[in-house]
């Protein structure tokens, strides 16, 4: 992302307002070293992916934004939103990417992600507004720290939540073990509850009944623009 320039984080992630200034000033900044190999002078990272984050329509400042490879969620870069809620990343090459915005206030989603594709090396991408406000969405049952019987076919665990008041395309529940390994994902549908019989669907848990122990669960919500939001995690113990 930052080839040719120093490792200062300001070069790696920029707000749209700084993009022009950065390009003009690039040759003047002492922090940059000239790339002498191609005889065209110092290279500067070119911000080519920009977006902005809102909270219920208002600019959301100082929120952490990560640039991740969509395939494996590897974090490639990160920045914070500026006073206008804007952010940008430079030198984002071709491929499938996602940005992840983490909420930091009560009533926010825990996180919001949006995928996008960069088609060509110098493509400019303007992402739509990412609304980190949860609009009332929250997990309901089981309560945080609840102790419940291990679920079975005939006594399944009921997971309940509240959907955001803005239209959601789908919601799904996800269960993880204490190490953060995925145990079970429900199917995606517009629903405020789902039952789980204790049989895993993910990774090493696929084909197995979940053993007793501590787990977390959360709900993921999908929207028509392709963005996905995560509600806060809850702890649950299966006894």
């Amino acid at each position, binding site marked *: 992302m930052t080839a040719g320039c120093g490792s200062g984080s300001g070069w790696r992630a920029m707000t749209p307002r700084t993009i022009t200034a950065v390009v003009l000033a690039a040759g003047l900044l002492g922090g940059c070293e000239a790339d002498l190999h191609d005889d065209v002078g110092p290279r500067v990272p070119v911000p080519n992916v920009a977006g902005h984050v809102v909270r219920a329509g208002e600019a959301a400042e100082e929120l952490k934004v990560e640039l991740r490879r969509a395939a494996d969620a590897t974090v490639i870069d990160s920045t914070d939103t500026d006073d206008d809620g804007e952010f940008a990343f430079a030198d984002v090459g071709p491929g499938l990417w996602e940005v992840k915005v983490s909420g930091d206030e009560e009533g926010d989603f825990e996180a919001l992600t949006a995928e996008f594709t960069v088609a060509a090396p110098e493509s400019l991408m303007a992402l739509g507004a990412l609304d980190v406000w949860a609009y009332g969405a929250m997990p309901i049952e089981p309560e945080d720290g609840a102790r419940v019987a291990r679920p*079975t076919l005939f006594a399944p665990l009921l997971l309940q939540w509240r959907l955001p008041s803005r239209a959601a395309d789908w919601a799904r529940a996800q269960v993880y073990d204490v190490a953060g390994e995925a145990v079970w994902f429900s199917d995606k549908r517009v629903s405020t509850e789902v039952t789980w019989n204790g*049989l895993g669907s993910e990774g090493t848990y696929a084909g197995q009944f979940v053993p007793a122990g501590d787990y977390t669960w959360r709900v993921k919500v999908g929207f028509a623009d392709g963005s996905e939001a995560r509600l806060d995690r809850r702890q649950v113990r299966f006894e």
Partner: protein
Amino acid sequence: MLDIQLGCQCRVGRAWAATLFVLATAGSDMVSATDIWPVFRGDARHSGVTERDAPYDSMLAWSYATGDSVLYASPAVAADGTVYIGNLDKELVALAAVGMPRWVFVGEGNFRYSSPAIGQDGTIYVGGSDGVLYAVRPDGTRKWTFTAGGPIKTSPNIGPGEIIYFGADDGCLYAVRSDSTLAWSYTTGGIVRSSPAIGPDGTIFFGSADHYLYALWPNGTLRWRAATGGEIKYCSPAVSSDNVVYFGSYDGYLYAVTINQQLVYATYTGHVIRSSPALTPDGRVFIGSGNWLLAVKADGTIDWEYGTEGEVTSSPLYSTDDEVVCVGAQDGVFYCVHDDGVLDWTYTVGEPLRSSPAPGYGNMVHVADVTGVLWSFGIGPSVDVGEREIAGGTRGLMAYPNPSTGRVALRLADDLRAEERIVVLDAAGRCVAVLSGRGRDVRWDGRDRGGVQVAAGSYLFQRVATGCSGRVLILR
């Protein structure tokens, strides 16, 4: 008994063929005591099993374009081999075992999801997308209708007392008497597209998109329900004679649960299950999951997987006699696999198959593709009579199909001995081929002794030892 020439419009592959004359036989020897495949999956328990022979190879008996689009609707077959199937054109079509249309009943909704069910008196029940359960007399006329609260995309099943059970998209399972009155209905939390199976004690089992498998007492009250991790849609449960219920779910698990709520196993297949299980007498299960036909042992472990190039949403048919399991796939291929997992034969239909195969007259198997063409494999009525008395007291050898484009099957009245031969003579009396075989079935590949396809024309078969003879017309 008379031989009659029947004309029917048949379609092979995508091209309409010229009118094909099929040699058919009229007579009571075609009629058995019970219907061959009266409901979806063959019986009230939805076992998916037949004791009849399966086709020996991929020889197509006939195909018939019923109309537009058949999805999960599968054929029902009456005792005389009559095949019933519905389609998107709002038609319920009745075809004779030889592929000739008998009648077409037109409803107000389409029948491409619902398989017909044949009642004790021959009444045919089928659900329409208009939310109407149609009762149709065996002559193709309307008997009565019953209107449910949503489209019917399940296959009716018939329980004790001629109660007809079916599910609908309004989330209800309905129980309707044979006089069209409602006995009861039961509401679930999701649409019902899983067709009900009936256990030996009358318990009704079906799935719902609310993720549950329901067990209802015959009076319509809940006996129990079992939660899965996904919708149960299109997959219909099957009940063994020892009261174990087998069902798949969109969560990728195949479940086996006793009628008394004991989990026997939950086997993870890794793919959505839309297919319904077929149960063998020794406790094995065949089912489609993803692009695979699976064989699952009685302990729940996967015995073998047979891979296809398309999703197996069709439900397998198992022939206990031949130990062969047949199923369609979305890759447009019809598969028959020996129950040890070794491929027996395939036939490329060329269009996706979601419909489930049903056995027919003789060793025939019928299955419909999504364009609405019904494909029939095996040996049907004209050859099953074998060496028969024909006019003048001569015993005749019957060939099938007749006319044929090449391959011909003969079924004999008794086993052909190892040293016995059947000669094939052309119209000039020249011997073009000598056939041997074992058992009652003898095949001719339409080639002469040099391996060259014979020319179009009439050919005479003669069983040397008995003098029985018959003719076949070869078309090129």
